[in-house]
């Protein structure tokens, strides 16, 4: 791998954590972000699970997209198949891959690390319908990352960005319990405004480039 390619990979990694943050820039995975951010402990559990599933599903979806679905992707099977374009199937295939991978990951963790399974247990199945997971696969397809290294860096970065966002929101919400919030704003309302303010803070990192 050349130095330039390494730099590119690192750039994508940093960019997907801080600038193209799944939550602050694209609002992906909001449902579980709002529901599970009441305490830091559960937030950490869900954050790790999301990062883990992203790290597996996005590269798998990338391989499927490159070698099966894209226009001309089937060329390796023979000349006659070279101009087949199956990309309209990608939604269906991606969601199936995600649901299957989540199931497999769940079984593997249960077998080899019961302690981790017990702490992630409830969150793992929920992740199959977390928009951040499907969103990352669709972004991967749209932004046309080149090569498995870039895709993996993007997946890991997005996961860590999501982790960072949910854990910091949970920490703030734990403190918020002792403050006097106006009645109608309690709960959901103040959480949205908080997330907005955090997003403004994150915008200060825009333009970071290595």
């Amino acid at each position: 791998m050349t130095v330039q390619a390494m730099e590119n990979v690192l750039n994508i990694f940093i960019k997907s954590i801080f600038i193209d943050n799944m939550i602050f820039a694209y609002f992906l995975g909001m449902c579980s972000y709002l529901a599970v951010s009441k305490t830091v402990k559960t937030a950490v559990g869900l954050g790790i699970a999301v990062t883990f599933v992203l790290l597996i599903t996005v590269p798998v979806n990338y391989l499927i997209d490159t070698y099966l679905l894209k226009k001309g992707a089937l060329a390796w099977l023979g000349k006659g198949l070279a101009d087949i374009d199956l990309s309209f199937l990608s939604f269906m295939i991606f969601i199936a891959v995600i649901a299957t991978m989540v199931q497999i990951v769940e079984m593997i963790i249960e077998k080899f690390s019961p302690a981790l399974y017990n702490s992630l247990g409830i969150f793992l199945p929920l992740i199959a319908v977390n928009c951040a997971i499907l969103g990352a696969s669709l972004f991967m397809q749209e932004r046309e990352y080149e090569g498995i290294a870039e895709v993996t860096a993007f997946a890991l970065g997005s996961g860590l960005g999501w982790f960072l966002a949910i854990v910091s929101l949970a920490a703030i919400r734990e403190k918020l319990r002792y403050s006097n919030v106006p009645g109608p704003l309690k709960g959901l309302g103040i959480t949205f405004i908080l997330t907005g303010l955090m997003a403004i803070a994150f915008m200060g990192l825009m333009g970071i480039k290595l």
Partner: protein
Amino acid sequence: MNKIDKEPIFSAKNLKLVTSPIGKSNPITVQVLGICSALAVTVKLKPALVMALSVTIVVAVSNVVISALRSYIPDRIRIIVQLVVIATMVIIVDQLLKAYAFDVSKQLSVFVGLIITNCIIMGRLEAFALSNKPWQSFLDGLGNGAGYGVILIVVAFFRELLGSGTILGYPVIQKLGLYSAGYENNGMMILPPMALILLGLIIWFQRSRDKSLIEHK
């Protein structure tokens, strides 16, 4: 034929299925569902309208399909069946958008695909369509789609008006002559954080009007 079958098509109970998700049990502001794909498309009014329409169609039609199949779907694999029905509907909507409204489809980018994981749709299929008749499910889908759409359109209206000074591309502020009076667009409105803050304010407004929605904790 039992008594329920003879219920008129637009009975008060059925109408309530449509109206209640628009206000009191709004999927976004009260049930906290479907925020994922809601906010990113609200910079301009036009993509927000298209998104609202797409979600309404998908939720209404998949509600009908699941409700019609509800006694044939084995309980254990119902989530996969639901995902397949939703994904099929989303693919159809996506292909239609690409064919007839290509520029809007480009603006919506991945968010059309993300309708699949929109919690409103899964939530309505699980909570309503699996235990109700097709017509009621259709109305419920329409109502929830509209409730989602209303929030999307309100947020998009303010963001486009204050951020770009236009409504549906029509330069309102310029025609009113406010620029020559020293008015400037608020560039902040176009950026993602303001969508969250606006939604927070909408929730604040709704809950001050209707005290029963306030969370006590």
